[in-house]
């Protein structure tokens, strides 16, 4: 038989070229022409009012507040950028920033592979699939406060079952929550436990939308499971992966309830993140001006993180 290698070079001229040109992407006109349409305005007005009240106004109010010295909720005097200067020159701020970085990165590093692995596993015909899926989702249904209280009991230095188990295995009683380093490690583990279901389900949904034919085609092409993961699964779930990454990063970076309830930011500030710092500065120290300044800094970091993710993970060609 003969094949491509020794076939005569005869070109099949596509006759559908006319219809087969690449779709022309319509460009939006810029600047957009503004045209007042009373009916359209009426329809979008409720949404605009809600967004303004719950998103724009608080940020604006926080920005104003951050430029004042406050006594409880009252603005006492305009102090310009003093609150920001004070924050940046305080050691506690940098300590909280480093803690936030460790907590966020540590959790992400564990959650992302864990949830991706579970999603891939649940996509297959594992035994008792529906039961397994229910068990996997279980931590998600608990509020962060309940999770924190549950783990506070499990890790309690005096009567926690996990402390007891670890003591039996290691020969000494570990200080899960009473040493700054191990408290941070424990916090990361608890956070991973509480937040992996959400990522798993999102990634599972994405994995399940990948057409089976792509895998079969790759199989015929000679791709093993690793090549199929790298060349099909991961690129195909990239948009969901981006959403999951942004969602988790922001969730971890802004997390207050779990940390505040489990460790209160301690011991010795070992688990105090920037978000917990806002809570403590505003509602323990009652320095709302400085708390607002810290909140604005966190907002800016959030925006920066989202931008970096979108820039680096945007699908090719879009």
């Amino acid at each position, binding site marked *: *038989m*003969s*094949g*491509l*290698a020794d*076939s*005569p*070079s*005869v*070109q*099949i*001229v*596509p*006759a*559908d070229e006319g*219809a*087969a*040109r*690449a*779709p022309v992407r319509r460009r939006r006109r810029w600047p957009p022409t503004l045209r007042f349409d009373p009916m359209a305005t009426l329809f979008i007005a409720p949404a605009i009012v809600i967004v303004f009240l719950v998103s724009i106004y608080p940020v604006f109010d926080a920005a104003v507040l951050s430029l004042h010295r406050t006594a409880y909720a009252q603005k006492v005097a305009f102090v310009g950028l003093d609150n920001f200067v004070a924050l940046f020159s305080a050691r506690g701020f940098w300590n909280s920033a480093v803690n936030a970085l460790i907590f966020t990165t540590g959790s992400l590093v564990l959650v992302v592979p864990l949830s991706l692995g579970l999603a891939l596993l649940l996509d297959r015909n594992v035994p008792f699939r529906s039961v397994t899926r229910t068990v996997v989702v279980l931590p998600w249904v608990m509020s962060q406060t309940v999770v924190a209280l549950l783990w506070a009991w499990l890790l309690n230095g005096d009567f926690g079952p996990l402390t007891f188990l670890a003591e039996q295995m290691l020969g000494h009683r570990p200080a899960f929550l009473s040493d700054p380093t191990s408290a941070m490690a424990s916090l990361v583990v608890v956070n991973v436990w509480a937040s992996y279901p959400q990522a798993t389900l999102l990634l599972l949904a994405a994995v399940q939308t990948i*057409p089976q*034919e*792509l895998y*079969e*085609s*790759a*199989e*015929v*092409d*000679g*791709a093993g499971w690793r*090549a199929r993961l790298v*060349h*099909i699964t991961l*690129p*195909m779930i*990239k948009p969901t992966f981006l959403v999951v990454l942004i969602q988790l990063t922001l969730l971890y970076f802004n997390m207050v309830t779990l940390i505040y309830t489990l460790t209160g930011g301690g011991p010795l500030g070992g688990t105090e993140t920037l978000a917990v710092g806002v809570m403590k500065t505003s509602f323990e120290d009652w320095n709302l001006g400085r708390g607002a300044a810290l909140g604005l800094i966190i907002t800016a970091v959030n925006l920066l993180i989202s931008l970096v993710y979108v820039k680096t993970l945007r*699908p*090719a*060609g879009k």
Partner: protein
Amino acid sequence: MTALSLDRVRKSFRSLEVMHGVSFDIEDGAFVALVGPSGCGKSTLLRMIAGLETVTSGEIRIGERVVNDLPPKDRDISMVFQNYALYPHKTVAENMGFALKMRGVAATEIEAHVARAADILGLTPLLGRFPRELSGGQRQRVAMGRAIVRDPQVFLFDEPLSNLDAKLRVQMRGEIKALQRRLCTTTVYVTHDQIEAMTMADKIVVMRDGRVEQVGRPLDLYDRPDNLFVAGFIGSPAMNFVAGRIGADDAGSHVTTDDGVRLPLSRTPAPFVGHRVVWGVRPEHFALAAADPVAIPVTVTGVEPTGSETLVAVRVGAASMTVLLRDRTGLNVGDASRITVSPRLIHLFDEATGDRLDIPPLS
């Protein structure tokens, strides 16, 4: 030389057997169409050849090798899927070169292979584009490019034209056939469209319910269908069937329908007289014979002129038939007329078994 051979191939899903001992051989370089209605098992069979479905029993050989237990990548086949299965995040060039990349071929060599396949298929200007930037026909061509770039022993096509509009389908039909002729690669082509099968294939395998009904050259299947199913499936518009009993009298042999209409027949040997049969004639084999007193009396129930030909629906006794006329006709709904057919163009099938009845005509 046989390029692909199936020997009593069976497939079961748990206790349900869906493929009941399929056997046929495909010669090297042949274009074979697997055709049959939805659910007949043709796609399953193709996937078994590809290695995407296991074989419960029997043997599949590609060349000299039994491939039953070989993974798809080791079978030396390429497959074009119904939805093309192009990798959406890879460019046309990357899509076409993927299989070679997976085999560890050097990048420069991949580039050369891709360029050559792209040249054959007229894809060179599109190599840098993503699948979403291509039209249906172009995607189809890329899918073929991906298949030919590897120079496999067998091409497998799984209903590759079903997502295209009618005009493009006709055009791509020609392109695939032309490509296959040029490359001379053994091809198995699954389709439910018998026109596609008739126009493209050297050999057709007609399947029903996991069984092979008939294997043969397109016109052999058309001229001498082995059974009622093949007779009804091959040909468009479909063959007309009327059940009746073979009779003979002074005027000659005939088939008398249950409502007493006499249908013509060649002179039939005595042992067949009284046999219950299904009388079949293709619509294009009828002719109008309004003035012939011995022709079949019909009532016109519908007229569909298409320009080049006219489809006339008629009633013969209680039975409905379709007559395809090349000439324009002045027939209208409700008209009474007569049609005639040459006895040598009549097909007879045993009513009980559905098998073709080959009655030696008396001279």
